[in-house]
């Protein structure tokens, strides 16, 4: 309902001003945006690629048509029924609708399989999908807000500062150090100025010339969050992690210069920012828009939208986690520190602070790919198995090679959730005679840390690999590991003796254990910033 009102308003203003807009340009803008959202929701995107930087892996085997380049209104070779007679159609609205309603009737000849019927699409949704896909063809899909545009690039004394970080809400940028600052001639706030596509924020500042006294309206759309300040007052608050969402606000302004501050952040996935202004004498002024496309990192976008929130208990997320083998087990703790235990190697593969992880990658579409941990201060640890029964002191440590290479001589037994906080104790068997209980205890604080409690029961000699890196140096009461933020130490170590050995071109921090009944070992993982 809101968006209808908004459309009407933009239309009326366009007509009143006598501009020769396409009759439904403003409608189209919202319709295209809706179509874009439906393209995701109806899982079209899993097979049909629309952006050269974002592959659609599910469509590769099926050779699903890509909606890229100039395809709308063009001829297309099809077969009448899958594997049937050859025919030719024009890729137009009629064909598009038919191919969704009856995917088996006219199958694109290039495809190696007909399209599985998508979720039901009603007539209204169909209009939006048509508008979006048609717009993809002439390259205007990204310009979903072009309709009714009167002027752009009017921010004066325009400067920007870009920041790196992963947030769920706009941070206090005044406390952060930008990695990039500059002035822009374009006069349009463009998040592309940051030149990265994920985990960043930008603050734009400048002025707008106001000629007439009156009430001015601002329409701020962003993916993820944004906030607009005019004359140091919040006019539009569109904060949080979300897909493209438009929020409006208005403010009374006097003639002269109005101070503008626009804050924006992007966590992962698609990024978008759009700010339009209207009011006395200004029909539609575009103040922000993504123009510069960030260079693709070659990686898939980092999806967000299903954060796994941690409240009173530890939570487990067992899935494909980037930085671990496919048997990663993420654990998020209320102490705001998280880890990923790798059930292939029995090693802690990663540690990080803040937000735990987002299910978006695996809980949408077919769920392909590895999800990166959320949060910050991520430490990737060496993933070699933690225990080995070495034949000699200088025998090579068994290596984790490739994605699914398993720890040698170790069998994963599962985990037990303990205490009110339901923290997991991982269990595994080393050789025939040793059982390990591996229990991480988070330590709350300004900079939380982890104590890893290892309890080894049984009989036999075994070596523990506490860390491995190109460099391990003793510092104070512990060891700095490589060039990471990690410091490890061994509280309550008793008679046990950590040693740094040189092996296969790296340093290994090892502890030899002779287990007769039971040995316990504590290792503290701290961040040194």
């Amino acid at each position: 309902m809101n968006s209808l009102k908004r459309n009407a308003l933009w239309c009326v203003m366009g007509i009143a001003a006598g501009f020769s807009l396409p009759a439904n340009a403003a409608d189209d803008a919202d319709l295209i945006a809706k179509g874009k959202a439906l393209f995701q929701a109806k899982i079209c995107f899993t097979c049909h690629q629309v952006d050269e930087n974002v592959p659609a892996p599910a469509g590769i085997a099926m050779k699903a048509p890509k909606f890229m380049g100039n395809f709308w209104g063009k001829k297309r070779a099809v077969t009448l029924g899958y594997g049937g007679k050859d025919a030719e159609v024009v890729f137009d609205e009629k064909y598009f609708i038919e191919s969704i309603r009856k995917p088996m009737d006219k199958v694109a000849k290039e495809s190696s399989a007909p399209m599985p019927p998508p979720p039901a699409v009603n007539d209204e949704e169909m209009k939006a999908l048509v508008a979006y896909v048609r717009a993809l063809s002439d390259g205007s899909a990204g310009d979903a807000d072009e309709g009714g545009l009167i002027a752009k690039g009017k921010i004066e004394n325009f400067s920007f500062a870009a920041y790196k970080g992963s947030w769920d809400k706009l941070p206090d940028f005044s406390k952060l150090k930008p990695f990039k600052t500059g002035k822009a001639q374009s006069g349009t706030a463009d998040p592309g100025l940051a030149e990265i596509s994920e985990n960043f924020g930008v603050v734009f500042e400048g002025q707008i010339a106001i000629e007439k006294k009156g009430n001015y309206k601002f329409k701020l759309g962003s993916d993820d969050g944004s906030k607009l300040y005019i004359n140091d007052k919040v006019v539009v608050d569109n904060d949080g992690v979300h897909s493209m969402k438009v929020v409006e606000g208005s403010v009374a302004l006097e003639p002269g210069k109005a101070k503008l501050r626009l804050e924006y952040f992007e966590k992962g996935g698609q990024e978008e920012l759009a700010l339009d202004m209207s009011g006395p004498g200004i029909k539609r002024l575009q103040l922000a828009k993504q123009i510069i496309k960030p260079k693709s990192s070659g990686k898939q976008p980092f999806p967000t939208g299903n954060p796994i929130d941690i409240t009173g208990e530890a939570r487990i997320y067992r899935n494909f986690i980037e930085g671990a083998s496919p048997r990663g087990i993420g654990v998020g703790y209320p102490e705001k520190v998280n880890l990923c235990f790798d059930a292939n190697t029995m090693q802690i593969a990663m540690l990080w602070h803040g937000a735990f992880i987002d299910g978006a990658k695996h809980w949408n579409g077919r769920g392909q790919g590895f999800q990166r941990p959320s949060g910050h201060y991520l430490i990737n640890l060496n993933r070699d198995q933690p225990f080995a029964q070495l034949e000699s002191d200088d025998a090579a440590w068994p290596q984790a090679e490739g994605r699914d290479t398993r720890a040698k001589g170790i069998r994963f037994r599962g985990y037990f959730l303990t205490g009110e906080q339901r923290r997991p104790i991982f269990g595994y068997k080393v050789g025939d005679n040793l059982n390990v209980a591996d229990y991480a205890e988070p330590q709350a604080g300004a900079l939380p840390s982890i104590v890893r409690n290892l309890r080894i029961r049984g009989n036999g000699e075994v070596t523990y690999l506490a860390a491995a890196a190109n460099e391990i140096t003793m510092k104070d009461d512990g060891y700095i590991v490589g060039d990471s933020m990690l410091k490890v130490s061994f509280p309550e170590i008793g008679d046990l003796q950590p040693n740094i050995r040189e092996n296969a071109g790296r340093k290994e921090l090892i502890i030899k254990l002779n287990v007769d009944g039971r040995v316990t070992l504590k290792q503290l993982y701290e961040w040194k910033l």
Partner: protein
Amino acid sequence: MKKITRITLLAGFALGQALGLQGADPVESDYYQIDQIPIPDGVVLETSGIEMLPNGKLAVCGRRGNVYVLTNPFGKPEEVKWTLYAEGLHEPLNLAYDDGWLYCTQRGEVTRMRDTNDDDRADIFETVNDGWGITGDYHEYAFGTRPDPDGNMWVVLCLTGSFSSQIDYRGWCVRITKEGELIPTASGIRSPGGIGLNHLGEAFYADNQGPWNGSSSLKHIPVGSFQGHPGGWRWFDLDAVKKIMKRPANEPKSDSRYPAERGRVKELTPPALVFPHGVLGNSTSGFAYDSNGKFGPFKNQLLVCDQTFSVVNRGFLEKVNGVYQGAAFSFLKGFGSGNISAYMHPDGTLFIGGTDRGWGARGGKRFALDRVTWKGKVPFEIHEMRAKSDGFELTFTHEVDAKTAGDLSSYSMSAYTYIYQSKYGSPVVDKLTPKVIGAEVTGPKKVRVTVDKLTKGHVHELQAKGVRSLDGKPILHPIGYYTLNEIPPAEVN
């Protein structure tokens, strides 16, 4: 209102019968009731596994890795109480209760869990076996069964993608013993949609249309068999496999047909039930069966889900020349989402769970849990369709009207098959129109249909639209799709 309609219908039917007219045709909902169990706000349960617990509660799991326990699962749908039992599992695709443990098959392992401190939440998650490989490809699903009569759970492992197997046992069926050992069992799996046991404890799994699978189907898994897709054959080189199984002497040839390749590759097991693609479904998945007749007349027949069509089909199976084959029929439609999991309670209540994520489904809901109960009336259906040397023997659920059942024009038949090929799927090929040359009513509920020609390997689609029951009703689902892997020898009198 409802009552009045029913009375009117009955009266109308009686009058119609008196005048030789037909009454209103029966519909599925006259016989079976589907209730959608509301899933509480905030709960996303992409229902992938369903199992009854000994305390009368129902355990359900979903693709997001969560497990809920439902109190009062047979009560009014809106009064079913949901409790979170476990979360954080890796896309579990079945649940099985045994020996005080709730088992599930996650992507990377068979796990068993239980609640040890009586707070109604699982706190121990024990890895029973994780002996297969996984690379992180989203296709690498794993489906498992309940324990078979020997205590083994059968697990089918999807290939890495559609075509190849990048890591141990992708594209294989393995059994996991009670002691947690893995036994390599069968090769040739492509992309399973479900696996289960029949009433004899034999394993069947659903494979989906794609390379080497012209149509989705349900396949029997004999130990040592090859199920059609050679993408995972490299694992014949593993020591654990070499010890117990041999690589087939011949590889299947692409662009062929099943009968020809069965001749060359003796381990090749043909699909027992083809669900013609785009006709009965697009994506065969989980199944269940009624073991005691409390769900109607279809005791021990397989009730097989289809994800895309949001339906449950019915399969009658028989063994001919040592090979499973049989007829598939439409059975029930109107489910909430894309059906993938099925559980039949011994009292005759069928639970069906579904999700449409990643592959669309007609049901329309993102995910659902449905409950089906039999209303006690027997629909007029083709109960069994058995292959004979020269046609088929049909057994009906009710006595037939001898005039229509014995009339040749009540029947028509077509036969067709699919290309057995390395390319994705297949069009319908080799279409034939066998002529129905005989329809002999051989018993109150039996008709012997003879045709001029049967073709080995073809789906024989029999339409019996003209047949009426003794009380004048048409067949609720009058088409049988018989997968004729073997033609039985002529009976000796």
